[in-house]
């Protein structure tokens, strides 16, 4: 079953940069898809188009069979809460407790006022605690998010995304600012949880060998087009060379 159907997606930024050229691909429910490609290839633009942090120039995105490129502001809130997003820079509210940061994942489901004053329900708080347990951070719950190490912060970010009870997780280079050991922990958490909960996941990665270890499917992007789409075993060294080869563009 397809959770995401992207057709003829093109993004041209205001300054004239063509980031995506007529991209089409589908993602099935339960896939752990990894997008690889050199920096500037258009990986972030793909993910950010899916939750409309970037407005596509043309093309269509069906999420759970619903067109989302044209949704209104109100609809957008409902779509975004179904998609968790994880960033390279964690992007937590540093001055607020770890627990509160996880609870922020519930905001999309709350009435605007209740959410604003932070009147989270008992169930939401309990869910947040069990998510913290899942990422091994219960003892840090009352610390400020900014006091945690990078790896811990990324685990909080994962818990925040999971608090949304998402159908899809978008992770934009989640390990790019972490050391190799921490990177592995984070990838393990992400893979394990998505697998257990049946969450579809799309991850942007720089590191090919990490991609090969976790991906149920790899997409290779170069200069705004998908030039590889297959399993890890199908990704040969020459394919890798091809994906990371930079054409000289003047």
């Amino acid at each position, binding site marked *: 079953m397809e959770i995401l159907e992207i057709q003829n997606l093109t993004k041209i930024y205001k300054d004239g940069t063509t980031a995506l050229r007529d991209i089409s691909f589908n993602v099935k429910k339960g896939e752990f898809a990894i997008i690889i490609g050199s920096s500037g290839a258009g990986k972030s633009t793909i993910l950010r188009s899916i939750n409309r942090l970037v407005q596509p120039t043309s093309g269509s995105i069906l999420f759970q069979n619903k067109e989302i490129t044209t949704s209104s502001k109100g609809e957008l809130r409902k779509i975004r809460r179904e998609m968790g997003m994880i960033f390279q820079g964690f992007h937590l509210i540093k001055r607020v407790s770890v627990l509160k940061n996880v609870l922020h994942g519930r905001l999309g489901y709350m009435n605007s006022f209740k959410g604003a004053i932070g009147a989270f329900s008992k169930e939401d708080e309990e869910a947040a605690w069990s998510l913290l347990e899942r990422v091994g951070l219960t003892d840090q719950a009352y610390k400020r998010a900014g006091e945690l190490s990078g790896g811990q912060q990324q685990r909080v970010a994962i818990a925040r995304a999971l608090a949304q009870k998402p159908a899809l997780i978008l992770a934009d280079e989640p390990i790019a600012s972490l050391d190799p050991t921490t990177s592995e922990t984070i990838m393990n958490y992400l893979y394990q949880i998505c697998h257990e909960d049946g969450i579809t996941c799309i991850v942007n990665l720089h590191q090919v060998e990490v991609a090969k270890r976790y991906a149920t499917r790899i997409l290779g992007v170069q200069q705004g087009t998908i030039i590889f789409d297959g399993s890890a075993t199908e990704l040969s060294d020459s394919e*890798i060379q091809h994906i*990371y080869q930079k054409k000289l563009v003047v």
Partner: protein
Amino acid sequence: MKENMPINNNIITSPSKTEPPRKKTKRDRFLTGILIFGGLFFIFSLIQLNLDYSRLISGTSKLFSFVGHMMPPDFSTWEKVIGAGLESLQIAIVGTSIGVVLALFLSFLAAENLSPHRTISWMIKGIAAFVRAIPALIWVLIFIVAVGMGPFPGILALAFNSLGMLVKVFAQSIEEIDDGVLEAMRSTGASWMQVIFQGVIPTVLTAYMSWSIFRLEIDFRYATILGMVGAGGIGWELTSAMRMYRLEEASFIILVIFLMVFTVEVTGNQLKKMIQRI
């Protein structure tokens, strides 16, 4: 080059955005120009204003005899003077508070990374700049005409003057927040209000508090001066004493003003340090 060998890279740091050097030399030249112009204008002014420096010498002796007349300070009116001093403090606190509350709301609309529309942000910033450009003393004269003498015009003048500055610095604090942090909140499906209350306010709270205290220090100093033109408080007492040539009383009032301003500043600094540690 790095990207050609991804297999050997475990950690890849994003390349820092370096500005083209051309821009820098251009800016340097601009600054040098300003500096030279400023120097020349200073020399020109010294000549053009035709200052009579001998008056500095005769004036100094006059000043000393004047200060002599002011001594010893006359404490007899202390009840009235301290009362007026407290009124100045009240004017400052109320005026600053009104400014802070209004600036708080306006800053969410003024900050470019939060404003519902660029035009709204631009308009609020424009109005704030206009309000800021008019000195507090002029505001108070306007409000005295509008609402009469006493503490009320003082409060309004300080509220407006504070508002002009606080909208600017509050909006700047918000604009300093990493866009990614706001994006992360929005991507959970949080509404504009929720992003502000759950994300922005906790992040800027200490900065807002420090700025507000800083502003209160300024406003208290203003409050003592504004009184001189009839906006209530201790300034009025000083003007009256000087006019009636009660110089001993005037020196006592100046002493009280000094002590109060000093106390407010020291307390303010202490508070700001405490806030930093939160």
